């Protein structure tokens, strides 16, 4: 089972190529904002980026707090999936994800769960992120 992970945030150049790839591939959208991950920029500290990708938690807090069961654990390997019809747009899931990896689709007012497909990895020029093989029991939080 492969899962998206941050390999080395210090190698990030802040090009946002990963976010563009994610938005483009799933929404055909020419933006960074539909991406299921974020590269964050800190003001004043030139060159400091923080990469927030879904950690594929085995016991995901985002799903645990969902009042309607819209966000549910995937059967295998950690992470979550969304049953869109059940979502009541309360954003409890977003607040529950302390590492702020779960993203919010402002337009549709629903969370954007990461599929762990690895398209972002394919467009990272500096091996900041990677698809890492992991046993199920290992798929717990690493930040």
């Amino acid at each position: 089972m492969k899962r998206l992970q941050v390999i080395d945030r210090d190698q990030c150049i802040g090009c946002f190529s990963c976010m563009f790839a994610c938005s483009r591939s799933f929404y055909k959208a020419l933006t960074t904002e539909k991406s299921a991950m974020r590269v964050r920029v800190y003001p004043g500290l030139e060159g400091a980026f923080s990469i927030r990708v879904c950690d594929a938690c085995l016991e995901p807090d985002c799903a645990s707090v969902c009042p309607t069961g819209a966000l549910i654990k995937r059967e295998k390997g950690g992470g979550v999936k969304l049953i869109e019809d059940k979502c009541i747009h309360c954003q409890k899931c977003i607040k529950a994800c302390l590492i702020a990896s779960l993203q919010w689709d402002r337009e549709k007012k629903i969370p954007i769960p990461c599929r762990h497909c690895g398209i972002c990895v394919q467009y990272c020029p500096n091996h900041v992120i990677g698809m890492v093989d992991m046993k199920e029991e290992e798929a717990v939080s690493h930040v």
Partner: protein
Amino acid sequence: MYKKIMEIDLTTQTSRVYTDEVLFDEFLGGTGVATELLHKHCDPAIDPLSPENPVIFAIGPFSNIYPVSTKTVAMFKSPLTGELGESHAGGRLAMAMYNAGLNAIVIKGKLDFKGYISIEDDKVEFRRAGTIWGKSSLATERILREAEKDREGKASIVRIGPAGERMSWFGAVTVDTQRHFGRLGLGAVFGSKNLKAMVVRGTRYETIQDFKKFKTIYDKIYKAVVESGEMKKYHDLGTSVNVVPLSKIGGLPTRNFSQGYFENAEEISGEAFAEKHLIQQIACAHCQCGCIHIGMLREEFSQGKEHMYKTFKVSYDHELVFSLGSNLSIKSPEHILRLLHITEKQGWDAITVGVVLAWATDAYQHGIIGDKETGGLALHFGDDKTYMEVLRRMRDHYNQFYSDLEKGADFCGNKYGGKDLAMVFGKNEAPGYMTGENAFLDWMAVGVRHSHLDSAGYSLDQKLLVEDIPLEKQMAKLVEESKFRMLLNSLVLCLFARNIYKTDIILEGLSALGIDWDPERINKFCDKVYKRKFEFKFACGFDIDQLELPGKLYRVKTASGKLDPDRVKERLRLFREIAGI
């Protein structure tokens, strides 16, 4: 493409957004569209520092969409040259404008308070900036990013430092992490409008119509950027990889263009910076190359009493290593970084500020200016401490002379004498190449914005070292390259990717966006945009027949030999004939 323009009137604090299909269909975007907007909104007779001077920003059809299409074009009437002001910057501005659904922004008028504008999609807020007036360019970014952090989307922070507030004719506008609309004084125009900053963000996007076609060309460009080696130079050592090779051929301007060989070139080379100071390369939004080289300097600040350290980070590249290094005979990266840091905080154009210091030093050494002007400072090449003090005195307007230095070398040469020592081309201070006549002709006449990025004459000069090229063909190449860059700058690409974006790739990229052009249309387009710029320049009083190279250049040796006044004249004649100008 949205084909949308936002017009902002600072005087009435109003704005409107409108669509102009015709304009974008004919002129694509970027420099093509901005030139037309300049013709529309700028009376060539106006004072550049009056409210009537428009500030125009434009992105192109490739912006935010394809790799390394990262630049935004700014256009205005230049306070430094009194004619076409055009400057390009990277950072996140192109992405932010795209996210706001805007292909161009036109700012006119003047705020009646010290303020900034905050753009989000179609909306503009006019906000007070009294508390940040006087703050450095670096602090302003930090403060505004925090002040605006709760709003939607990734923001681009576009602002001036104190130099722009003082309306220094070479005040820069800084974008995000130390990218700049550096040249030709846009910062002064911001200052004249009481405009400290422009924050842009948005929530808009377009969707891809033909995904397969788009992916094919996107991946082709992506692979070329990341894997082909075409951009290796830029992300590896960066442009300062040029320092030593240029010096070896006698093309690195040293001590105000006295010679092209710098005896300490290796100490300030790209390699030396990388070894001691480079901490990271970072990128503009949607550029996988990442050419922004951040240098770090750690300093002890308790004068040895304790172990107290401070650290600052500043971006560097070839032009700055030339202007604040070899051209001032500064042989230490530490000293260059210190001079750069104050320049960055003040928000001066770093090329111009170094060339101005070099003029002052040369003029002082020749007795043209003296202690009366400098307030007792003796100016010597290589004296970094005095240069730091000169910059402080410029910052503080210590006396009339230091105030005048903020107007550039051409102004000072006219006022104090020593005009032949002012390394200016069309009144704009020289970039870092002493390669020969093609570079100089490019900056003076052929290039529309007096920039080394207009047509790379420095590269042609270097070809002459190994190849005999007839004069007419040299001028034809300069003109051809200048014109082709009208297309690159309309798309708007970073010119570092010019070897990737050849005509066939550009046409394929346009086609995937539903814009079907052919090589003939490109040629006509380039010719038209080029000429439209000269129309504006001429209307401002730019006169090719009056152009002269700095006198000193006829007394020195460049990489491709001594200059010949008759040949320079012949080059100008050929230029007009070939370009149809």
